[in-house]
């Protein structure tokens, strides 16, 4: 019993006081020097039942960027089967099957990027573009394109050609769209 009491007193209890945040908010001792060398230091996750999530100091690592998350042991805390499913889905998606594409708008000072995978249909995509650039694109018709609108959404396909958004089925569009351009004004109205 005595041994235990002495041992306790020797410890710096502040070091083990539960802290759940970034360092710098108080003088956090450099506990992390004692930790293993493996790269998963700047991660944050949960433990189960009776503990809650604990954050790890991330500010210390400003000189060396944190490692890519995939390489970190035990992060994120999901089972191998699910992890493999996610990674297989990413592999299958590969290049050009709908990822982030650049969107330019005539007259706008800089480009934007959107993730085509997020949308399931043309109306959804067009609505997102309208919101993003604060404009109205209007209705698509096969015969007249976006006639009546000041703007026409176009895209560059795999062959490098500029096409009107909406002519091909959605799935096909997502596969071959490399970038988007919202044309404006007379040029736009010229597209039929």
């Amino acid at each position, binding site marked *: 019993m005595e*041994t*235990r009491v002495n*041992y*306790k007193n020797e*410890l710096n*209890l502040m*070091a*083990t*006081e*539960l*802290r*759940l*945040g*970034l360092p710098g*908010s108080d003088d956090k001792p450099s*506990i992390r020097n*004692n*930790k*293993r*060398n*493996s790269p*998963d*230091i*700047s*991660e*944050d*996750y*949960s*433990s*189960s*039942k*009776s*503990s*809650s*999530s*604990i*954050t*790890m*100091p*991330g*500010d210390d690592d400003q000189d060396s960027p*944190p490692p890519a*998350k*995939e390489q970190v*042991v*035990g*992060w*994120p*805390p*999901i*089972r*191998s*089967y*699910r992890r493999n499913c*996610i*990674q297989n889905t*990413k592999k299958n998606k590969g290049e050009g099957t709908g990822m*982030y594409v650049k969107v330019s708008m005539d007259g706008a000072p800089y480009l934007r990027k959107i*993730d085509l995978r997020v949308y*399931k249909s043309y109306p959804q995509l067009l609505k997102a573009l309208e919101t993003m650039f604060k404009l109205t694109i209007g209705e698509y018709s096969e015969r007249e394109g976006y006639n009546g609108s000041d703007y026409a959404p176009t895209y560059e396909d795999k062959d490098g050609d500029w096409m009107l958004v909406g002519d091909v089925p959605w799935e096909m569009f997502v596969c071959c769209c490399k970038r988007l351009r919202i044309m404006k004004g007379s040029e736009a109205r010229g597209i039929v």
Partner: protein
Amino acid sequence: METSELKRSKDSVNSYESARRSSFPDEVLERVLFLLKSHRDRSSVSLVCKDWYNAERWSRTHVFIGNCYSVSPEIVARRFPRIRSVTLKGKPRFSDFNLVPENWGADIHAWLVVFAAKFPFLEELRLKRMAISDESLEFLAVSFPNFKALSLLSCDGFSTNGLAAIATHCKNLIELDIQENGIDDIGGSWLSCFPESFTTLEVLNFANLTSDINFDTLEKLVGRCKSMRVLKLNRSVSLEQLQRLLVNAPRLAELGTGLFSQELTIREYEELESALSHCKNMHTLSGLWDAKGIYLPALYLACTHLTFLNLSYAALQSVEVAKLLAHCPRLKRLWVLDTVEDKGLEAVGLNCPLLEELRVFPADPFDDEIVHGVTDAGFVAVSFGCPRLHYVLYFCSQMTNAAVATIVQNCPDFTHFRLCIMNPGQPDYLTNEPMDEAFGAVCVLSGCPKLRKLEIRDCPFGNAALLSGLEKYESMRSLWMSACNVTMNGCRLLAREMPWLNVEVMKEDGSDDSQADKVYVYRSIAGPRRDSPPSVLTL
């Protein structure tokens, strides 16, 4: 029993005659106790007196062992001679996340050998986080002529060849439940090993196997197993094939679909919808891989009595899931991907007042660039609509102290609270303060009288914390601490003070000698184990 009678029978413990005079005849007692299923009740019963202890052990048919190293198979067999069903759990939970060395232990074979000798009439085996080889599966298949049910979750070391052995030899099989495992999936031919005369299967789950199976074989198997009530398919089964299976199995209580995204004609869609609508008994629905929103309405009529819906392999948007949930008023358990976002979770709160369990998984945890998913707002919305919520696993992009406090106030019955903030180093994003208050709101380390398991990763807890829980550890199943501030000396002290505990330390290559990188502490009456690999030290 009257207290005085109890006292008398206790006093005359060696005199069986006098004990018999003053208590129930054994046969009656055993008959009554046979009906007792709860382990806690059985535990209490066994403590009353020696007669009751004996009656209990003779009448027990199912044994649950939460940690395979807490007891030995010989001890189990000695105490319970009539076991028909065993549930065994092995490795610590963090082995699911690759934090435990591969050869750590928890091999089932030694148990099977004892069971084959002592419980030749064994019917059921349910394993979680055990190491099991194909040889062991074959041994199992041939050693127990009455074998009826095999369930494997988070196990590893076996392949589909082991399943082939089970299908080939277990003539009375009722249940084959292969959940998420580290299985070597060589091919789907195991399914063809069920003989043509075999008709007893009621539960078939191969959802987590990736190889293609022969659909013709499957269709015939489902067709002749008229009592089938649980069928969970893998991705290789298409929507059209699903429809054909359902026509033959409308009484399914649990369905796991295959791939839920195929180009269907209108007629094919209507046939699918019709087949699903005939499944009036369905209470569990899962699978739904890559589910397309446009096909979800086919499920609506099947969801009326649903209590468990697993959408965690379908990247659905909030609007789609909201529409589906409107048809699931009786839902108790829901698993989703974070693609549903907070809006989707609002729909949960609005439509599912009976919800008890919610798990929100990350759809894309490896991509730093994409900021989406769910936040504290979604969790709070669920808590307002679902007061019975008590089990949550929540991967989110941000959280606040206030949100957790609200959640716990709305849902006072929490038993499992697992929160994972995906962006590292995130404090409460509103107040920019650490999440200390949240932790206090949920549970405090020293104040949990019913604490069973405690698992801590990457925290500044040290020896003081480890040693403060000494009395607790005997009533707990286990304690895990990894990447904390615990030293070898602290662990040695613990091992010395508590001889009934096994204190195991897993060292990592290149780490400081004095640091205890990973500590796993558990109570055991079997003593220190003898099968630990070199990387595991028992103190």
